[in-house]
Structures are given as C-alpha cells and as structure tokens.
C-alpha cells in the first residue's frame, strides 16, 4: 500500500520541524557564550567529520539494500542492511566517545548554553539513529527468517526513508555545530 | 456615579492616543456586529420553515461577485486599521535616542523597586513624578517576568530578566494612579501593585529632597531598641536603611517607609497599626510573600515599628 510510505513521509516532515526547533535554539545561543566551553574551543571537527562519513556511507548502503530488494537479490539485501547497521553503530560509537571526552572535561548539559544546546541537539539526533538501528536490526532479523523477498516491501522502503532522513538531519547538524564554528 | 478607571479615564498623552484608537476600533466592531446580528435576526424571522412546508428551497451554490465584494471590504478595513496602528505606535513609543533613563524600574517577586539614577533616590512600589514631564523608564527584572502597567497612564511593558525595555510615561494631571504587575509572576502576582503619584514640580522636588535625607538613628527609648533589633533580627539581611549597616536590596528600601502610602506592595495602607499587624505575621496578609513570619514578640514588634516611624 502507498499508505505506509505516505505516512512515513509526513512523519519525517513533522520530525524535521522538531529538529529545526532544536537547531534554532542552538543558533539562538551561538556566540552568546563569553566564557567557558564553546563549539570552537571544545570540539574536534575532523574526528567527528570522519565518523560522519560512516553515517553518510550507511545511507548509501541502505540505498543499495533497496536496489537489491527490487532486483530480488535477497542475499545482497541482507548484506547491505548488515553493512548499514555496522556503519550506524560506528557513528554512534564516535558520538558516544565524543560525549565521554567532553564530560571528562566537565563539559556537560548543565555547564552553559553551549553544553545545553550541543548535548540536546546531538542527543536527540543520536536517539533517532539508535531507533533507526533498532528498526534495521528487526528488519535484518525478519529477513533472516525469509521475509522481504522483493521486489517491493513497505517495511524496507519506509525504514529506508527514515534512515535517509536521520542522515540528512546530521548533515545540517554537523554544518551548524562544527562547520559554522571553524570555517 | 463613581468614576470608571482604566481606558475610561486616560490621563496621559500616550493613553489618550491609545484609548482613542481603541474607541475607534470598538465603534467599527459594533457596526460590523450590528450588521451580522440584524442579518441573522432577519433570517431567523423571515426564513423559518413553515410547519407544513416540505418543499426544498431554491438551491443556490454561491456567487463569485459577492465573494469578491466581501473579501475586498475587510481588506480595506484592515488597511485603515493597520495605518492607524502604525501611527499610534510611533506616538506612544518614540525612539529613545541617547536619553538617559529617569527611573530604573526593577520587578521583584512581588514588589517594585524604583531607582532615580539622576538623584540617587531608591524607593519601592510608589513612583513619584512631576506632572507634565515625559519620563523615560528603564524596565528590568531580577527574577521572573513581570509587567509594568498603570492603566490610566500608558501601555504595558514586560520586565524580563536578561532583557532591558524602555517606555515613556507622563501624567497630564496630578493625582494618584493605581497600577499593577500584569504578567503572571507567581503566588502573589495579585499583590504586586504600583502607585504613581503625579505631583507638581515643587512637590516632587520636595519629596526627592526628603528621600535623600539620611535619617539619624534614634539614641534613646523604645525606638533605639527597635534600631538594635533591626540589625540583630535578620531584618538587615534583606532590607536597606541608609546610614546603618543594613544595605541589602532583596526587599524594599525601608529608609523612608514613612513617606509611603502602603505596605506590602499595596496590601495594607501604611499606618503604625497596620505596620504592627504586618510585622506580627506578613504571611497572613500576603501569603507566600518572601518575607517570612519572623516570630517577633509583641514588644519587639512595637520597638521596630517605633524605630521605622522615627526615621525622618
């Protein structure tokens, strides 16, 4: 049914407003911090940039999974979903280690408005990635038991739309937090 | 008939302009409402279904010309209102330029501090101003959002922590104008009142000079006991009395409490009896106020009242 894809399309549109507001909050306080940690003095754009590439690549592998579904190549579809999950987990690992590093320097959500907006924005994004990973894992599990033989599946296509959305949000978030601070 | 307040008694040039605009829009609104009411009443009488009539009326689906007409007319009305809105806004809120504020107004939970930077007067809840002068007020808040509002003299303006606002205010005639905090600010929002005392320039100057006098501390009698209690019973932790070690600005400056008409930001009129009642238990008159019941004995209360009354 086209219903499911329409639902996820509007859902993603609705979610993007949620992220727009979090980003606006970040932008609103950008440059208001006079002492204490800021994006410019506490973040490492290169390291996070490299981990971001994993997420970007995972969008590509998810697309390939969709292609395999259409061509009814069940085995390759499972492989590409697995690759997507691995890349997503690597990204989350990068995020988690960045957070741990910051918290180790006593840069927390309650430290100042930079900490508040940074942790909220990246935290909600990370949460969305984790939800996506959970759904992909379920997808993979079902595929292992023989589901999704193709050439069409709303489940695969909807989760794919969601995953591309999460990836797209990250491009904006990375640009606003990291690129804006350093370039 | 007693005089109605607020918009029915505009007492400053700004308020006259705003009240005028309000009357104007209300008149237009009543006109439109009347048209609708008349039309609906006519319909109710004229087009009521007869009890035996079961035929269907003429099926009319609409009329493009009518739609255009009743789209354009409101557009014209809105255009006029918008023009009036802009001109009124300019009249009420002219640019500040490089004027220094005449009074700095600071909202506290639940009282107002008024500081006159040009003379150094620091007082609370009662704003004195000379008639006919247009004063520039700087509006700030120390805790939550409040709103400075004297209905007969002018607009509302929020007092927001971390954000400075300015308004122009002036009184066209002498008198006492009552105002209040207009933005909900917590438990005692209702009792965060303002009194504007508009007086002649001479009276204002005289008041200002009195406020600047540093009163001498009573040396003898019950008032001297009160002076001592004031410094030892934690009063000084929150209040200021100029010329003594008490210099805190958490509560209102009490140096010239004598000169003020009310206590507790308008809860009670200022008299020795009421001051006594207030000191016995402020929570009885202003429940939730930040001034606790100090559990003073009757003689302690009397001594402090005598002291505050003696400060001249």
């Amino acid at each position, binding site marked *: 049914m086209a*219903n499911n894809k*329409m639902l996820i399309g509007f859902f993603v*549109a*609705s979610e993007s*407003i*949620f992220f727009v*507001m*979090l980003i606006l909050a970040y932008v609103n*306080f950008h440059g208001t911090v006079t002492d204490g940690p800021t994006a410019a003095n506490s973040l490492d754009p290169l390291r996070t940039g490299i981990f971001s590439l994993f997420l970007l690549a995972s969008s590509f592998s998810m697309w390939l999974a969709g292609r395999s579904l259409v061509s009814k190549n069940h085995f390759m579809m499972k492989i590409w979903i697995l690759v997507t999950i691995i890349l997503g987990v690597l990204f989350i690992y990068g995020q988690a280690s960045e957070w741990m590093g910051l918290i180790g320097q006593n840069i927390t*959500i*309650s430290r*100042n*408005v930079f900490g*508040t907006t940074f*942790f909220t924005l990246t935290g909600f994004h990370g949460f969305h990635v984790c939800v996506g990973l959970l759904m992909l894992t379920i997808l993979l599990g079902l595929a292992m038991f023989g589901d999704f033989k193709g050439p069409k599946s709303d489940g695969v296509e909807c989760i794919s739309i969601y995953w591309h959305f999460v990836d797209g949000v990250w491009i904006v978030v990375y640009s606003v937090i990291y690129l804006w601070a350093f370039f | 008939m007693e*005089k109605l*307040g607020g918009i*029915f008694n505009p007492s400053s040039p700004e308020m006259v302009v705003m*009240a005028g605009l*309000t009357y104007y829009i209300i008149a237009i*609104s009543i006109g*439109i*409402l009347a048209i*609708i009411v008349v039309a*609906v009443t006519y*319909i*109710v009488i004229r*087009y009521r*279904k007869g009890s035996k009539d079961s035929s269907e*009326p003429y099926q009319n*689906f*609409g009329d493009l010309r009518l*739609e255009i007409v009743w789209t354009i007319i*409101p*557009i014209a009305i*809105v255009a006029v*209102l*918008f023009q009036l*809105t*802009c001109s*009124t806004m*300019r009249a009420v809120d002219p640019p500040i330029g490089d004027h220094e504020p005449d009074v700095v107004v600071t909202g506290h939970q639940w009282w107002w501090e008024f500081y006159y930077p040009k003379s150094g007067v620091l007082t609370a809840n009662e704003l004195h101003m000379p008639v006919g002068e247009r004063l520039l007020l700087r509006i700030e808040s120390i805790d*939550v*959002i409040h*709103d400075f509002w004297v209905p007969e003299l002018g607009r*509302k*303006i*929020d007092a*927001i922590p*971390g*954000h400075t*606002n*300015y308004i122009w205010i002036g009184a066209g005639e002498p008198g006492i104008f*009552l105002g209040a905090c*207009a933005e*909900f600010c917590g*438990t005692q929002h*209702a*009792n965060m009142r303002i009194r504007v005392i508009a007086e002649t320039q001479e009276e204002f100057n005289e008041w200002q000079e009195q406020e600047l006098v540093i009163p001498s501390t009573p040396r003898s009698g019950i008032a001297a006991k009160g002076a001592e209690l004031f410094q030892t019973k934690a009063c000084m932790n929150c209040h200021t009395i100029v010329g003594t070690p008490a210099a805190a600005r958490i509560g209102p400056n009490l140096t010239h409490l004598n000169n003020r008409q009310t206590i507790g930001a308008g809860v009670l009129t200022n008299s020795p009896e009421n001051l006594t009642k207030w000191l016995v238990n402020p929570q009885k008159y202003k429940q*939730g106020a930040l001034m606790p019941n100090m559990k003073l004995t009757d003689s302690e209360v009397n001594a402090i009242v005598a002291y505050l009354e003696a400060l001249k």
Partner: protein
Amino acid sequence: MSTRIPLVPENIKPLPSLKGNEGMLSWVSSVDHKQIGLMYLMSTLVFFIIGGLEALVIRIQLAQPEFDFISPEVYNQMFTMHGTTMIFFVVMPFLIGVGVYLVPLMIGARDMAFPRLNALSFWLVIFGGILLYYSFLTQSGPSEVGWFAYAPLSEKPFSLNKGPTYWALGLLAVGISSVSSGLNNIVTILTMRVKGMTMRRLPLFVWMILVTSFILIFVIPIIASAFAMMLLDRLLDATFFTPAHGGSAILWQHFFWGFGHPEVYILILPAFGIISEVIPVFSRKPIFGYSFVAGSTVAIGLLSVGVWAHHMFAVGLGNVANAYFSLASMLIAIPTGVKVLNWVATMWGGKIYFATPMLFATAFIIEFVMGGLTGVAIASAPINWVTTDTYFIVAHFHYVLFGGSLFAIFAGVYYWFPKFTGRMMSETLGKWHFWLTVVGFNMTFFIQHFLGVMGMPRRTYTYHDLPYWGSMNLLSTIGAFVLAISVIIFAWNIIWSLKHGKKAPDNPWNAWTLEWYTTSPPAVHNFNLVPPVRGRRPLWDLAHPDQLDEPNSKVV
C-alpha cells in the same frame, strides 16, 4: 442502470484487534474508529466536567473583592489546570474524536488508514490526562505557572514543585497523540476516499479536519521540542530558559506561541467544519461558496504559523516586529470573515428548521463574530498594550473558544447523536440547555470586556474594591453558575436520551453526507453499499436524480 455501486472493499480482513471489536473487552481492545471516536467523546465529557468545576472554583474566589475562599496557590493551580484541561483534554480531543468517528464514514471508507495507530492516539490522551492529574497527589500539588508556563517562573529555582514536570510530560503525551492522529487523518483522507469523491467534493468537515491535521503535524513538534527543553532544564539542569545561567526567557515565548497560536486554529477549524455541515442541512440549501469556505480554511492554516508574536507585544520586540505581527494577525480576519458571510448567505433564502443543532449553530455565528472582532482589535499592537493580560483577553478567547468551539461542539453532539447511538436527544432538554448556555455564557464573559479595559489584570486571585469591580465580578460569577446548570442539563440529556430517547432513523435530519446513508448506529463495517458519489451531496443526488448538484448547476 444501477444507481448504486458496491463499496470498494478496502479492508475485507477483520480489523487487527485482540478479540474483535464487540463486547465489553472492546472498550479496551477495539481499533474500530467509531468506538474509539465514542471513547474520545466520553472522556472529553468527563474532562469537561472537571475543567468546569475548576472554573467554578475560580469564579467563586473572584465573586467578591478580597475574598478568602481558597489560597493564592490553589487559585493559581486552578486556572492552570482549567486552561490546560479545556484546551488539551476537552476541545482538542473532542474535535479529533468526532473527526475519527466521522471522517471514514463521510468519505465512504471502512476505517481509518491505520486503525491501531488510531487506538494509540486515543490511549495516549488518557495517559497524558492521568499524568497531568496525578500531580494533584504530589506533595505540593499541580503546576501553578499557567497553561503558558512562562520561563523562568516555570524553572528552578522559582518552581521547585513537581507540578510543571508532570504537566509537561502529560502534554508531551498528548502532543505525540495529536501528531499521530494528524498523520492518520491525512493519509486516510488523501488515499481512502470512495470512488467519485474528489477533493472538490469532500464534505467541508473533512476539509477542515484535513487542514487541521496539517497544522497539527507541523506545529506540535514546535511545542514538543520546547517541552523537551523545559524538561531538560528542570530535570538535568540544562539552561535553555534560565537567564541567570545564560539562557533566554523570551525564547520560550517564541516557541510556546509558535505552537500556541496555530493551536487556536486547531481548536476552531474543525468547529467551523461542524457549522459548515449543520447550517446547510437545516437551511435545506447547499453551502454558499463551497470553494471559498474550503479555500479560506487553507488560507487561515497558512497564515496561522506567521502571527505568533502578537501574543508578545508587551515583550518589547520593537515597532517593526510589532507592525508586522499586527498586520499578519489582522489579515486572518479576511478569510474568517469570508466564512462567516458564507454561512449567513447559506441561511439566506433557506427554509430553516430550528432544531437544537441549528440553534447552537446560529448562536455560534453571533458569539464567534463577537470574539473575532475583539480579536482584530487586540491584533493592533497599541490596543494590545492596553488589553493584554487583562480580563478583556479572557473575555475575547472565551468568546472564541466557548462561543465558538464549544457552541459548535454542542451543535455537533445534537446533530450526530442519533447517528452515534441510534437515539434522538430530547429537544425539550436541548432547548433548555441552549437558552441557559446563551444566557449564562454572555452573562459570565461579556462584562469581562469592561473589567479588562478598566484595569483588572488576569490571573490574580484577589482584587481591590475599586468602583464597580465587585458587582461586575459577582455578575460574572452568577453567570458561571447558570452555565453550570446548563451543563448539568446537557449531561442529563445525554444520559436520559441514551436509554429513553426516540429511536432514530438512518437519516433523521434528511442530511446529504454519506454517514447518513448507513444505519444508526453504523455496523462495525460501516457500509454494505455506498451510493455513487457524483457531487458534494450524494444523498441529495440520490433523492433528486433529476436535479443533480453538479451537471446542472453552476457550482462555486
């Protein structure tokens, strides 16, 4: 030639429910849109009575100057809970619920596109309501910072009680519910219309639900993010809205009203939809200017997201911003005025039958125009500086939300009750309810316009004995009690009619939309057959095959 086509069997499989959709268990397990719709309506009646009692407590406290009925804390809790309850747990779920019941029937569908998501939406409202009201059991009671919860008053250290936390969590649950029902409505309306039901033939109620659903999915995330930030501030010491730590008090207001003003249209557009169904049927004429009524709704929906700061004229945003928001807000009067005039034109030349639904719809026009006109006045920044945060505003939005939304809701209940239950409501009790509501409502709120411009601020638990303030407030309080009596009659009418009401035929009002084609109440599967849809009024076309709406008439 066959005049009937069989319903396209969208969903032959039984609905995905635990134990079917009938019997006692169905009150928990059902995913049938009609049962969920009724559950919405019943729970809103309960919340309506709770919110009404809170209003009575407020009015008793204000009956006299310096009155001592409740403490300031309790007063502040009452107006916070009254506003929150009426907006989020009465008007919103009622309109969503009546939409959930009627949309599939009106478009000739078997159910919503996502029946289980529909059930989730309902149960989230109940969950949110429990979270909100649970705060009464916490040590210091429910939130006392108002339904707008301005920072930093709603933040530490000014609100150390748990009330605002439960409040935000409860409303977050309602927000998720609203987004999911918005999504569900959009997909249902866009994809599940019966053959022949084009967008230009959609019943206006469905149009209004569609526009409302778009507003829901795009503005609820605004407040959801603000609630998330507020909760982070309160629970993890984040600093979004605490100026003392670098946050911004004004940011909360932008976020809150960015949602809060479109919310007003969420509360009124489906009410417009109800009126747009009731007035034509009882006037025996098609709606005048269908395209303009539908199109003006879209215009209102688009404008609604660009006017939020007219709630913030006292903040001091500067004259340029104030001028823009004044103009944008006034512009909304134009599509709204178009609607009102089209309703009046629909009645003009009709043969009007004044049953209770039509009485409420007629009164709605006048009360709503009243609220709309004061709305235009306060859209002008200088007038707003005079009236904002006074009883003038209280009067204004009660004319819109009570005189508007609630009058329409009453009209809708009397209109569709026969379809929902298979029984008619008592007309006698209905007329008592109507007249007491009109009298009580205007008595309570009209006088508040004057109190406001005379200088009485809102949200104050007490006031000085200034000239006429006491008597005007007393009049308002008496009006509130008249309203309370009218609500008792209304509730009694529902209960009495459920058991003893006259048996309702399938189409008691001789109406034209598809829900009246099926039985009263409809079977679980809604329709055996649906008539062909060749115009906006399928049942009219069926009854007047020689006088079809579209082929012969110029349809605007």
